[in-house]
């Protein structure tokens, strides 16, 4: 079958492959190489070994601080988003008046882009803080919690929809059996609902984790790292290293490689760890 399909490679696969090579594959390979060089315009790269990686961690605390800030933000966001989204999904699984409208409203913020989202919350948070005579750049604490609240606003509805689908997939007779055996609502939740929606929990944790960790637009629009660089997350720090200081492009590229490795490790670890807890159906 389709013996001559191979000959159609230029028609079927070449446009995508060429665009993919231009946008991703070649830049990726070049990026790895350039992280070991000193350069300003790609063409004038000089091999410096692992010097860029050392500089990234030792020249200043920016990278370490950004990493620490990102980790804290990610942990708080993953927990808060998933707990609230799961709770809302429990409330909205059984049909009642307005269920669909509620779902629609909660889901909507997810569609708004990061830059717009950041400025909406900038207005709101600064409006509240102005009663106390300060703004969001006054303290890193405000920036941190501002980012967390914004992330919750954006992602709760999205995760809620995934949880609702998971909860609705639980066979009704399982719930019935539990209630006949005398399990209360709390026991049902922990012994049946949560184990049965483990696949959804895996997906949602994974999604919130990578979304929070790679956050850029919202960070730029809400605080842009202020005060100082205290609320700067990893992606923004890499961006500022690339385009903020001349001669630091190699260091920026080295930071980007470290960033990529962390994201890849998280992705695999997460899938491996939670994958084991899934209940076979």
């Amino acid at each position, binding site marked *: 079958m389709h013996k001559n399909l191979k000959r159609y490679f230029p028609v*079927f696969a070449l446009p995508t492959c060429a665009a993919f090579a231009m946008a991703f594959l070649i830049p990726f390979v070049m990026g790895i190489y350039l992280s070991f060089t000193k350069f300003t315009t790609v063409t004038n790269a000089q091999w410096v070994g692992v010097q860029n990686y050392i500089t990234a961690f030792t020249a200043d605390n920016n990278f370490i601080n950004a990493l620490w800030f990102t980790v804290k933000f990610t942990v708080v966001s993953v927990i808060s988003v998933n707990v609230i989204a799961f709770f809302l999904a429990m409330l909205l699984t059984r049909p009642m008046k307005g269920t669909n409208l509620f779902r629609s409203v909660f889901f909507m913020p997810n569609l708004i882009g990061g830059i717009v989202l950041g400025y909406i919350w900038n207005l709101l948070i600064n409006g509240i803080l102005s009663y106390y005579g300060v703004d969001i750049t006054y303290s890193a604490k405000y920036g941190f919690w501002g980012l967390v609240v914004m992330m919750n606003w954006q992602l709760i509805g999205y995760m809620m*929809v995934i949880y609702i689908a998971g909860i609705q997939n639980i066979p009704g007779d399982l719930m019935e059996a539990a209630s006949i055996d005398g399990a209360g609502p709390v026991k049902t939740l922990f012994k049946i609902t949560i184990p049965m929606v483990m696949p959804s929990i895996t997906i949602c944790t994974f999604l919130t984790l990578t979304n929070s960790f790679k956050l850029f637009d919202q960070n730029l629009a809400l605080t842009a790292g202020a005060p100082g660089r205290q609320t700067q997350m990893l992606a923004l720090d890499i961006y500022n290293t690339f385009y903020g200081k001349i001669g630091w492009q190699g260091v920026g590229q080295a930071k980007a490689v470290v960033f990529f490795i962390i994201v890849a490790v998280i992705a695999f670890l997460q899938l491996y760890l939670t994958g084991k807890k899934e209940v076979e159906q």
Partner: protein
Amino acid sequence: MTKTKQKGLRALKFLFLLLLAILFLVPILLVFMNSFKSKFYIIGSPFSLPNSETFAGIENYIKGLSSSGFFAAFGRSVFITVFSVLLIVVCTAMTAWFIVRVKGKFTKLLYYLFVFSMIVPFQMVMFTMTYIVNAISFNNPIGIVFVYLGFGAGLSVFMLTGFIKSVPLEIEEAATIDGCNPLQTFFLVVFPILKPTAITVAILNAMWIWNDYLLPYLILGTGQKTVPVAIQIAMQGAYGSVDWGGFMAMLVLAIIPIIVFYISCQKYIIKGVVAGAVKG
């Protein structure tokens, strides 16, 4: 007794959800409200309703937008989003079919490269990608469409190959026996079957491209702004003299297409986004 208790509990639940829904809408309503206030009354008191003194009508929309080139940015964003999505759907569907039907080491490698690209953060390739795109003069609204094809290929090929594997081979064989060449087989037989997944792929890419900031900023710069770039520039480039009225109007105009799009095909969007999550 228990019945009234249950009723009360349900009412409480409804009230709680209603309050939360209002809370969810407040940020968006706040921007809408402020876009009708005079620019001096926004930043200091964003929560006060417009009154006879602060109400500015649609002045913000007219003045703020015409001065910042926002309408051109809007048109550019529409152009880039529409053509990128069309190109992505057609090209990646063809590629995905090719990968599934031509089994071999090369197509397997291609598939894994596409999947791999999904976990790589944009910062990893942004500098070198910008360099290459500039070097081959793709740094214009038409060239960026191809850049989006490259970045959108990962998720799109991944989702489409997953679906194509479930398409029975017999249908295609029948088409071949009837004298269709691969192109005819694809467009007349396979592509119509792919429609549900193609819609999902289109929605996911449309949302991402419409909202994307960093890629168009790096490639097109501030000379050819898209909507997110125009918003960021209006804020960043003004150094303290931000026209808050015009800025609010910009935010509203950036949100409206998304809300209209959402209301008009909500079912597809929620389904598509969830499908993208489950598979991605």
